[in-house]
């Protein structure tokens, strides 16, 4: 049976697509699945550094599309988890170097061998986005709880629908529970009142993401990180588990701890 091809996209830039692709991919691989991540952000390659695999790239997506190497030759095996692979983007080319038809072929070939093919989409709605969704049959939309990001997510939902990619699922990234509590940040329920989409995960705004990205070690490998926990839960939901959607326990500074200590709020 062919694997699932899932695109991770957002419209707005910098909301966490690459971080999500790396971590959901790692978490799925940790569950024993065979996973390949495609960096479709040609010209602005990032997934390699988030995964700490930047020194091992020889061939890339454009080489594969142009036929100057075999697909297998371009795949980089992760050093920590031997069921995780990366197909890197070209850094010195532009988005036009690959056509949607070529992406469809590459993802279909990979789906023969892998359980999951995750495609990290570039920001925007132009060629790079169209390439990224070309071979996908499922989509995860990443947004942050901000007006501009949610607005762009709505646009993406419409474009995915038009491209026959039905039932995308939403990841709400960079949630700060302290701000949600005082009413200064939308939470998942608020966003779902506005967007016509089903949720699949809530990721807290978490320093450990920056630390782990500095090191090139995906946070999904860190058993103590709240964000890592959230990514692992997304992986399990993709696998079909029905986990309740609650943000992981907050460690939101001394006011939060004081409030919990004196019992002003549960959790």
């Amino acid at each position, binding site marked *: 049976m062919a694997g699932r091809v899932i695109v991770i996209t957002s419209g707005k830039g910098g909301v966490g697509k690459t971080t999500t692709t790396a971590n959901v991919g790692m978490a799925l691989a940790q569950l024993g699945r065979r996973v390949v991540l495609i960096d479709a952000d040609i010209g602005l390659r990032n997934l390699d550094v988030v995964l700490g695999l930047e020194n091992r790239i020889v061939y890339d997506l454009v080489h594969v599309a142009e036929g100057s190497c075999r697909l297998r030759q371009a795949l980089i095996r992760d050093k920590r988890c031997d069921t995780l692979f990366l197909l890197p983007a070209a850094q010195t080319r532009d988005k036009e170097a690959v056509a949607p038809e070529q992406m469809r072929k590459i993802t279909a070939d990979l789906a023969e061998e892998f359980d999951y093919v995750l495609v990290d989409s570039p920001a925007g709605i132009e060629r790079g986005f169209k390439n990224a969704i070309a071979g996908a049959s499922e989509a995860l939309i990443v947004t942050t*709880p*901000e*007006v501009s990001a*949610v*607005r762009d997510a*709505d*646009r993406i939902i*419409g474009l995915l629908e038009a491209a026959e990619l039905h039932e995308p699922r939403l990841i709400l990234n960079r949630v700060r529970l302290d701000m*949600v*509590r*005082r*009413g*200064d*940040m*939308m939470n998942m329920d*608020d966003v779902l*009142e*506005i967007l016509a989409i089903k949720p699949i995960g809530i990721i807290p705004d978490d320093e450990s993401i920056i630390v782990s990205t500095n090191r090139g070690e995906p946070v999904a490998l860190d058993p103590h990180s709240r964000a890592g926990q959230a990514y692992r839960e997304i992986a399990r939901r993709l696998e079909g588990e029905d986990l309740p959607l609650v943000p992981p326990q907050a460690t939101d500074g001394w*006011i939060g701890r*004081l*409030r919990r200590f004196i019992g*002003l*709020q549960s959790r």
Partner: protein
Amino acid sequence: MTVLQLLQRLWGKESERPSKEQAKERLRLVLVHDRAGVTPDRVLPLLKDELIAVISKYMDIDESGLDVTLSTEDSQMALVASIPIRGLRQRL
């Protein structure tokens, strides 16, 4: 800041309207515009046909003079329909 305000802040209940409500309200409005902007060409003809079908059950209307548009005024979006009536139908 009074002790009461301090307590309210600790409780997370401030008297002013939380900014997320503003975010939601602005999003709702902007998305009505965005969504309409993407689809009026597709939606309006369909809407027009269904309107004619429904209204014709009760009234005799002049289909050629029917005009359905979206208008935006005062940061509100409205559906404006002008439907010339020739006469009422007999009671069913």
